[in-house]
C-alpha cells in the first residue's frame, strides 16, 4: 500500500493544501467545461431538456469508482484510509430533498455556484451569498436540529455492506445502470426535442 500518500506520511499538511488548490483548479475547470457555470444548463436536467447533470455526474462517479476499485485490488490504495462520511440516513434523505428543491429554485449547487460566480453570473454571486447566509442561519439554529441530525445513525457504511454482497458486484451494477442511464438520457433528450419542435414550450 502506498496510497493515500498524505495519510501515509509522504507529505505534510502544508503540501496537502497546495494539492487542494491544484485539484480544485482541475475540478472547477471541468465543471465550467461541462457548462455547469450556467443555471439554465443545470436546471434543464429537471425539465428533461438536457440531461448533462446526470451524464457528467455519473461519468465522474464511474471514473473515480473504477479507479479506487482497481487501485485497491492492485494493493496500491488502502481504501480503509479514505474518509467515508458516516451514514445518518434520516437527515441525509431529508437534506437531499431540501437540496433538490433548492437546486431548482436557486439554479446551482454549492460547487457549481462557485463556477458561475467565477464566470460573471450575478445570480451565481447572489446564490453564494444566500448559501453563506443559510449556513450562518443553520449554525445559529443548529441546537434545535440536534435530534434530527443524529437520527438514523448507521456509522460509516457502504452499499456492499448494507446489501450483504461483494464490492465488485455493486461496482458492476453501478456501471451497468450508468450505461443504461446514458442511453436512456439521450433518448429522453431526443424525444423532448422532437416534442418541442412540434409545440414549442
Amino acid at each position, binding site marked *: 500500500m502506498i496510497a493515500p500518500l498524505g495519510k501515509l506520511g509522504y507529505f505534510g499538511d502544508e503540501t496537502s493544501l497546495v494539492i487542494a488548490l491544484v485539484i480544485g483548479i482541475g475540478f472547477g475547470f471541468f465543471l465550467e467545461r461541462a*457548462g455547469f457555470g450556467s443555471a439554465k444548463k443545470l436546471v434543464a436536467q429537471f425539465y428533461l431538456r438536457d440531461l448533462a447533470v446526470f451524464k457528467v455526474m455519473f461519468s465522474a462517479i464511474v471514473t473515480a469508482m473504477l479507479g479506487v476499485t482497481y487501485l485497491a485490488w492492485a494493493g496500491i490504495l488502502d481504501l480503509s484510509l479514505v474518509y467515508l462520511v458516516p451514514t445518518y440516513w434520516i437527515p*441525509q434523505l431529508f*437534506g437531499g430533498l431540501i*437540496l433538490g428543491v433548492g437546486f431548482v*429554485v436557486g439554479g446551482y449547487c*454549492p460547487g457549481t455556484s462557485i463556477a458561475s460566480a467565477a464566470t460573471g453570473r*450575478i*445570480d451565481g454571486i447572489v446564490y453564494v451569498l444566500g448559501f453563506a447566509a443559510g449556513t450562518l442561519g443553520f*449554525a445559529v439554529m443548529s441546537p434545535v436540529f440536534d435530534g434530527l441530525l443524529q437520527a438514523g445513525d448507521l456509522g460509516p*457504511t457502504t452499499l456492499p455492506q448494507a446489501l450483504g454482497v461483494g464490492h465488485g458486484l455493486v461496482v458492476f451494477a453501478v456501471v451497468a445502470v450508468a450505461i443504461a442511464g446514458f442511453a436512456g438520457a439521450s433518448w429522453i433528450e431526443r424525444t423532448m426535442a422532437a416534442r418541442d419542435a412540434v409545440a414549442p414550450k
Partner: protein
Amino acid sequence: MDLLVPHKRSPPQPYTNPYLAGIGIGVALLAAFVLVGRGLGASGAFNSGIAWLVSGVAPDYARANRFLAGYLSEDSHPLKAWLVFEVAGVFAGALISGLLAHRVAASVERGPRISIAGRLALAFVGGVLMAFGAAFARGCTSGQALTGGSLLNLGSWIFMLSIFAGGYAVAWIVRREWR
C-alpha cells in the same frame, strides 16, 4: 484583458462533451483519494468561512456552538482548511476555463418570463435552502453525491436519489423561473 472587452470578445465556444467533462472531474476526484485520502467538496468551505467570521465577532459563542466548533481549532486558522483551498481552486479553474472559451461575461441566468429582481431573489432563497439541506446531509452534491457516490457510501446514494426526487417534485411549480 481583451477577453473582458465585449466588442473584442469572440463568441462563446460550445461546451465540452458531458462524458469527457465527467471523466475529467472523475480524475480530479480520484487524484484527491489517492493523494490525500479524501474527496472533493464545496459546502464545507462555506462552513469554515462562516465559523471564521463568527469566531471573529463572537469567539465565545462560536466555540460553544457545536456546528461551528467543528470547524475551529485552537492552534490553526479556520481558513487553513483543505476545502477552503480546494474551493479557491474551483473558482480559479472555472475562471481559466471560462476565459479560454470566451464564456466570462456579467449576466443573469433566467427564463423569459421572470424579472431580473425575481430571479435574484430566488437565487438567494435557493442558496439558503441548499445551505440547510447540505448541513442536514453532512455534505452537498460534491462532498456527498460525487465523492460518496464513487466510494459506494450508503448515505451518499440515499442523499443522491432524494436530490433528484426533490428537484423533480418542485420543477413544475417553479417553471416560470426557467421556461
